[in-house]
C-alpha cells in the first residue's frame, strides 16, 4: 500500500490524572491539540465540571497525609520526580519541541532547566520553615514561635506558553511545601502536562497530591475558583483580563488566596526564581506557651 509506513506506531491516549488514576473525561469529550504549525498532535480530554470536582475531592483526601509527611520525605519524593524526568528526557524534548514549535536543541535546554528547577525546589522542602519561620522575642514569659504550613488544596491554572518549564515552575513550589493541587494544563499545549502526570504516577508522589486536568480555561477555571473546598488559586495561566477578574470575584466566596496573572505576560521561566512562589501558598502559624516552673 502506497504511503503506509512499514510499521504503524502505537499512539498514546492523553487522559486526565485524578487521584492517581487516568480517567477520560466523564463527559466523554475531547479536543484536538495541534502543534505550532496547526498540525494534529492528539486528542486531549476536555475536562468537565464533574472532573474538576473529582480532582478537588482527591486533592483534599491526599492533603492530610502529604502535609503530614516529613519535610525530608517530601523533598525526596520531589527529587525522585526529577530523577524520572531526567530518564524520560527524550520524550519530553520531543513533546515540548512539537508543542512549543521549538528546535530539538532549544527544547532540550528547557527540559534541562525544568529538571534542575525540580531539584532546586526539592531541596527547599526541609529548609523553608527555617528560612521563613522562627522564634519571636515577645515581651513576656512566653515561648513563641511561628512556622509555615501549607494552605491546603491549591488550584493552578498553568502557564499557557511554557508547557513544561513554566508548568513545573508553578507546580513544584506548591507541592514541595505540603499543599496538594489541581492543575489545569496549558489549553493549547497540554501534552507535556499529561506526560508529566505519567511520571508522577510512577514516582513516589502519593495519589491525589497532583491532579491534572486538560480542557478549556474559560470553562474549568471558574469551577475551581468557586469551589468551596479549594483554599488558593494561581491565575498565572489566565490571559483574559475579564476572566481573571471574574475568577478573583468567585474566589472571594471563601477567601481563597489568589495569585494574580503576571501583568506583563508570561515571565522568562529560565530566570532563577526567588522565594515568592515558594511562599505564596503558605500560612503562618504562631504558637504561644508560658515559661515557668
Amino acid at each position, binding site marked *: 500500500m502506497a504511503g503506509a509506513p512499514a510499521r504503524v506506531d502505537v499512539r498514546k491516549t492523553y487522559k486526565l490524572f485524578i487521584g492517581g488514576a487516568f480517567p477520560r473525561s466523564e463527559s466523554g469529550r475531547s479536543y484536538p491539540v495541534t502543534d505550532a504549525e496547526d498540525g494534529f498532535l492528539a486528542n486531549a480530554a476536555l475536562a468537565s465540571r464533574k472532573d474538576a470536582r473529582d480532582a478537588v475531592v482527591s486533592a483534599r483526601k491526599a492533603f492530610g497525609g502529604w502535609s503530614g509527611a516529613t519535610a525530608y520525605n517530601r523533598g525526596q519524593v520531589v527529587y525522585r520526580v526529577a530523577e524520572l524526568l531526567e530518564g524520560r528526557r527524550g520524550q519530553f524534548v520531543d513533546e515540548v519541541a512539537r508543542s512549543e514549535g521549538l528546535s530539538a536543541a532549544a527544547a532540550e535546554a528547557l527540559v534541562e532547566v525544568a529538571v534542575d528547577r525540580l531539584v532546586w525546589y526539592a531541596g527547599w522542602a526541609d529548609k523553608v520553615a527555617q528560612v521563613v519561620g522562627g522564634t519571636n522575642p*515577645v515581651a513576656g514569659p512566653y515561648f513563641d514561635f*511561628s512556622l509555615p504550613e501549607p494552605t491546603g488544596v491549591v488550584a493552578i491554572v498553568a502557564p499557557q506558553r511554557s508547557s513544561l518549564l513554566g508548568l513545573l515552575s508553578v507546580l513544584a513550589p506548591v507541592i514541595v511545601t505540603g499543599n496538594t493541587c489541581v492543575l489545569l494544563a496549558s489549553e493549547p499545549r497540554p501534552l507535556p502536562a499529561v506526560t508529566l502526570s505519567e511520571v508522577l504516577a510512577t514516582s513516589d508522589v502519593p495519589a491525589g497530591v497532583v491532579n491534572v486536568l486538560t480542557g478549556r480555561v474559560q470553562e474549568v477555571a471558574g469551577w475551581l475558583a468557586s469551589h468551596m473546598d479549594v483554599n488558593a488559586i494561581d491565575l498565572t495561566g489566565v490571559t483574559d483580563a475579564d476572566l481573571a477578574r471574574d475568577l478573583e470575584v468567585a474566589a472571594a466566596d*471563601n477567601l481563597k488566596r489568589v495569585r494574580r496573572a503576571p501583568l506583563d505576560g508570561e515571565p522568562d521561566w529560565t530566570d532563577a526564581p526567588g*522565594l515568592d512562589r515558594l511562599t505564596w501558598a503558605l500560612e503562618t502559624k*504562631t504558637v*504561644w*506557651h508560658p515559661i515557668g516552673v
Partner: protein
Amino acid sequence: MPFDYAPAPESRAIVDLDSSYGLFIGGEFVESEGGRTFKSVSPATEEVLAEVTEASADDVDRAVKAARRAFTETWAPMPGAERAKYLFRIARMVQERSRELAVLESLDNGKPIRESRDVDVPQAAANFFYYAGWADKLGHAGYGNDPQPLGVAGQVIPWNFPLLMLAWKIAPALAGGNTVVLKPAETTSLTALAFADICRQAELPAGVVNILTGAGETGRALVEHPDVDKVAFTGSTEVGKAIARGIAGSRKSVTLELGGKAANVVFDDAPLDQAVEGIVNGIFFNQGHVCCAGSRLLVQESVYDEVLSRLKRRMATLRVGDPLDKNTDVGAINSAEQLAKIRELSAVGESEGAQRWAPSCQLPERGYWFPPTVFTGVSQAHRIAREEIFGPVLSVLTFRTPAEAVEKANNTPYGLSAGVWTEKGSRILWMADRLRAGVVWANTFNRFDPASPFGGYKESGYGREGGRHGLAAYLRRSDR
C-alpha cells in the same frame, strides 16, 4: 461571697475633647468637602462625646492625593534610618500621652480602663517602637536585598481595639516606606484623632498619615479609590469578602484580618484553675469584642462538671460596669447595634435548645450592657457554635478523644485562633500541629505582641500582622 469594692474611677479630666473634629489630611485638620457629621457617644452612658466628620468621596480623593504626594516626594525617598526616627518619636509620644489615650479609649469604646491602660495603649506604643527598628533593616527582613514599598495604603480598622489596630496598621506601613489613609470605625474615632495630633507633634511630614473618620461608605470609597495601592482591613468576614470582590481585577495588594470562632480546648489533665482563668480571659476580655476570642469552649467530658462549676463561680466574681473604674472587669458593649446583635444571637441560642446562664449582676441603667453569659448543651449545628457573636457569650461543647477535639475545633470556616489546655507537652504540640488556625495559645489565651505574627487561616482572612511577617503586607519583594 464576693467582696465589695469602693468605686475607683479614673479621672477623665486629663482628656480635653473638642466639641467637633474635622479630617486630618496633608498634615492638618481640615473641613470636609460636602461631608456630614455624626456623634460619637460613650457606650457606657450614651453621653455625646464629640461631633465627628463623615468624610465624603471628595475627602477620600483629597487624602489619597496628599498621601501620594507624600509618598513620592518625601517618605519613600527618605533613608530608612530617618523614617525610623519618626516612628520612634511617635512611639515615645504615645507613651507620654498614655494616660490620656487610655481614658479616651475607655470613654469612647466602653472597654475597662484596666485593659486600655495595660493592653491597648502600651501595645500600641510597642508596635511603633518595634517597627521603627525595621525601617532601616528592610533588606534583612527576608524579602530580597532591596524590597520596595507598595505606595499608598488604604486602611480600615474596627472599633474593638481602636488605637491598637491603628498601630498594627500604620507602624509596619510607614516602616516599609508607604504612606497611609486610615479610616477608624464610626463608633470609635477619637483616639485616631488624638493620634493625628501626635503625628503633628512629632512633625511627621505632611500627608504621610491621613485620618478620615466616617462609616461604611467612606471605607468603600477609600478601598476602591484607583490610586490606592494597598488595602488593609480588619473587620467582619462579610465585609472582607466584599473588599476582595471589589478589588478583583485591580493590581491592589490586600490583607484581611477577619472574624473567628476560636475553639478553646480543655483536656482532663489541664491545670483547671489556670484553665478557668484562660477561659474567662479568652471570652470576656474586652467584652468578647475580640476576633480571636475563645468563644467555643471544648471540654473533655470527664472534667466537664468540674470545669463548669469553677467557671460559673469565677464568672460570678466578674465586675461589670463603669469602664473608667479601675476595678471593672467587663465594660460596656460598644454600640446599641452590637448589643442588639448579641441579644439576637443569644435568643437564637435559647430557641435552638441550649441552656443559658449568667451570674446575677447589676447592670447600669443607661448605656449598652450585656452580662457575661455561658451556654451549655450546645451542639455543633447551633448558630451560637458557628457564628461570631462578638460579645461576652461563651458556647460550651464536649469531646472525648483528642481526635474528636481536633475535628470539632476545625469544624468552622474560620481559622484565626485556638487554645489548648493540658499539662502534657507532647499533646500540646500534637494539637498545635493539627489545629487549622493562625495563632495557637497553649496554656494561655489572648496574648499579643508586636514581634508575634497574627492572622488567620481560611475565612479568617489572609496576611499577617506583627513581627517580620507583618512587613510582607507592605513590601514588594525584590527577588520575585
